[in-house]
């Protein structure tokens, strides 16, 4: 952490006014040693979470799932079914909690909204020409407004990776700022697409850039590029939100998305949250899993804990 980062909040709000200030700040952040970060993440993955702790972790993980479908083939029928599952993941067990949110394309938002209306499950929509972000800004903003108007209370935007990698931080920053404005009351999750950022140094810088610009959440991935969420990437992002809160007082959420398929994986992430940023983030308001198949594995493990026998996939709904 640089001296700049620990200075007062008002100083940080000035950063977005100049490309030079942004660059100086982002490049002044401490580096990330790849090997060290990966070893720490791997070490956290060796925690052994059993019995009561496991049960508690599974329920928490279910509550953190952003149940997602982002396919060209999505239909109203498909997303309605998904929304129904979000409300009652395990129809056989009413004690099973609902998930955190349903995440769909903007065109699917109205159908999901019908199902979720009146529930505590959030409705997230990807926007801003997801997944590439390669559209004119006014198209991206229109995309965002449409999703909010249709009932989304969370928007998952993508950053302009091309601009970021080319060092045009101001452009990335400004786009996040205006998207945030277009969101109105909806929460803004900023997808960094870490698989395209290539280095942890870039992940840390992009995290700070997204937070400085007003993002409510930072999210790893679209799920549409070969490398999605990883433990070390999420670790670097957790360190960023931790340091950002220390510097500004504002808490930002983290959402790893893509590639998290098993209960074992999810619990590793929860351990990492617990030991990196602490219990303040162990809440669906501050940590989410962008996932689809993860939920069924969580449900199977949950059933195993309650019944003592291993379940099979046929006993859980496929939506």
């Amino acid at each position, binding site marked *: 952490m640089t001296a700049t980062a620990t200075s007062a909040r008002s100083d940080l709000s000035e950063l977005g006014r100049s490309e030079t200030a942004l660059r100086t700040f982002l490049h002044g952040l401490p*580096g990330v040693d790849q090997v*060290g970060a990966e070893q720490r993440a791997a070490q956290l993955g*060796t925690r052994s979470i059993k019995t009561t702790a496991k049960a508690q972790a599974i329920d928490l993980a279910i509550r953190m799932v952003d149940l997602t479908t982002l396919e060209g083939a999505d239909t109203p029928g498909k997303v309605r079914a998904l929304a129904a599952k979000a409300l009652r993941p395990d129809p056989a067990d009413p004690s099973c909690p609902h998930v955190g949110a349903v995440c769909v394309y903007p065109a699917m938002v109205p159908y999901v909204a019908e199902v979720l209306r009146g529930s505590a499950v959030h409705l997230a929509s990807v926007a801003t020409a997801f997944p590439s972000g390669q559209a004119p800004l006014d198209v991206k903003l229109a995309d965002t407004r449409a999703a909010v108007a249709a009932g989304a209370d969370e928007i998952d935007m993508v950053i302009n990776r091309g601009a970021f990698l080319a060092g045009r931080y101001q452009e990335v920053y400004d786009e996040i700022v205006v998207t945030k404005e277009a969101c109105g009351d909806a929460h803004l999750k900023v997808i960094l697409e870490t698989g395209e950022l290539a280095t942890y140094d870039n992940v840390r810088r992009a995290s700070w850039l997204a937070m400085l610009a007003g993002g409510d959440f930072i999210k790893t991935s679209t799920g549409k590029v070969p490398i999605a969420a990883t433990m070390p990437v999420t670790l670097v992002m957790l360190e960023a939100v931790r340091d950002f809160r220390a510097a500004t007082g504002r808490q930002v959420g983290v959402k790893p998305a893509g590639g998290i398929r098993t209960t074992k994986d999810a619990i590793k992430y929860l351990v990492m949250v617990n030991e990196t940023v602490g219990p303040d983030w162990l809440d669906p308001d501050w940590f989410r899993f962008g996932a689809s198949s993860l939920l069924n594995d969580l449900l199977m493990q949950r059933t195993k804990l309650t019944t003592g026998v291993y379940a099979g996939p046929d006993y859980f709904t496929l939506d």
Partner: protein
Amino acid sequence: MFEYAPAPESRSVVDIKPSYGLFVDGTFVDPVDGGSFKSINPASEEVLAEIAEAGNEDVDRAVRAARQAYEKVWGPMPGRDRAKYLFRIARIIQERSRELAVLESLDNGKPIRESRDVDVPLVAAHFFYYAGWADKLEYAGFGGGPTSRHGGGVPQPLGVAAQVIPWNFPLLMLAWKIAPALAAGNTVVLKPAETTPLTALLFAEICQQADLPAGVVNIVTGAGETGRALVEHPGVDKVAFTGSTEVGKAIARAVAGTRKKLTLELGGKAANIVFDDAPIDQAVEGIVNGIFFNQGHVCCAGSRLLVQESVADRVLESLKRRMAQLRVGDPLDKNTDIGAINSAAQLARIRELSEAGSAEGAERWSPPCELPERGFWFAPTIFTGVTQAHRIAREEIFGPVLSVLTFRTPAEAVEKANNTPYGLSAGIWTDKGSRILWTADRLRAGVVWANTFNKFDPTSPFGGYKESGYGREGGRHGLEAYLNV
């Protein structure tokens, strides 16, 4: 909010006998002129087993067995066959790794996470590495030794090696000693530390299981007197010791004027230098790993943190936050980060030096941390406001206690780092490559970890400058200690 339920490793995987004899000439025997002592679990103070204490006569029998094996079996044996025995041993260690890890944690107090993920895998790796050298000694770069000075010949072993090892990494130190000695063609008599003899005795069983010829490896258990009898025995050709600098000096005096070749791996007071451009999160992990790995019972522990003043507050804040996550307790719990202090005596020493730190004006801090009632425990501790003059900045504490000092310039960091009679290891944290190399060049230490710490590998030589000892263990260099070159 997220409490980890106990996740104990099963201790039933290891079968501890009520009592153990000495391992001499391939069999377990009762001592002739020794007594016995107890090995306890430092996490519970429960007695684990009754251990034979070797007397002079027992040591003599072990040395004679080793001599006999050297002359009749192991010396004449082709290197490729010695190699196969060592490969066999390596394999059996892998197969029995869980058992070895549990036993190590029970007897030593170290967390199962470390014995399972660090100690035992390194032990197997060490035997694998040196196994391959046994039939390639002429390629090790030491020439052919006095008998074939102009190269081409195979360098000769020394004979019988007397090896005395400490309690901090009982099985790993055994591997560091036995693997190169046997690969080079020597036979050994090894004395494990009196508080941690059990894995060495299990290793003796592994030698039997591998059909290693009798007398090639002999294990004599006991305390300081047994060790003295061993290193002073006129029948040994080589003495290798890992332990305190004080005992190391006594051994150096004891072998003076003899033909015995000596290598010593002794104490340290390593500086871990954090520059202002360090990757802070990884540096904090490195600081934690540097001093709290194995309860700080590590000769190369990064026990002096030298942090650049401009980032000192920031680093300390992160360090304290990280320390609060350390889980102290049952060594067999898979989630334990810091286990038990190895013995009551060691605990007393750590307490004494820590009290000296407070008395001399340093500020002491530990995270809130509940320690078990029985057993030997010490909370992870840092002292800030430490100066070079404080005892806790000069003396090896060998416990989970970190002294924090600051510096302003690279030259000052190097000067403080080198301002110690020790010279085993050091750490450097900075994102600037040329600064790493500049600093590494100037540090008088045998192992320099840059942007990492406490990494070990069988191929990587380990050993110190100055009063941290002489000779290297590991790698090609490690063979030299066991060859007549």
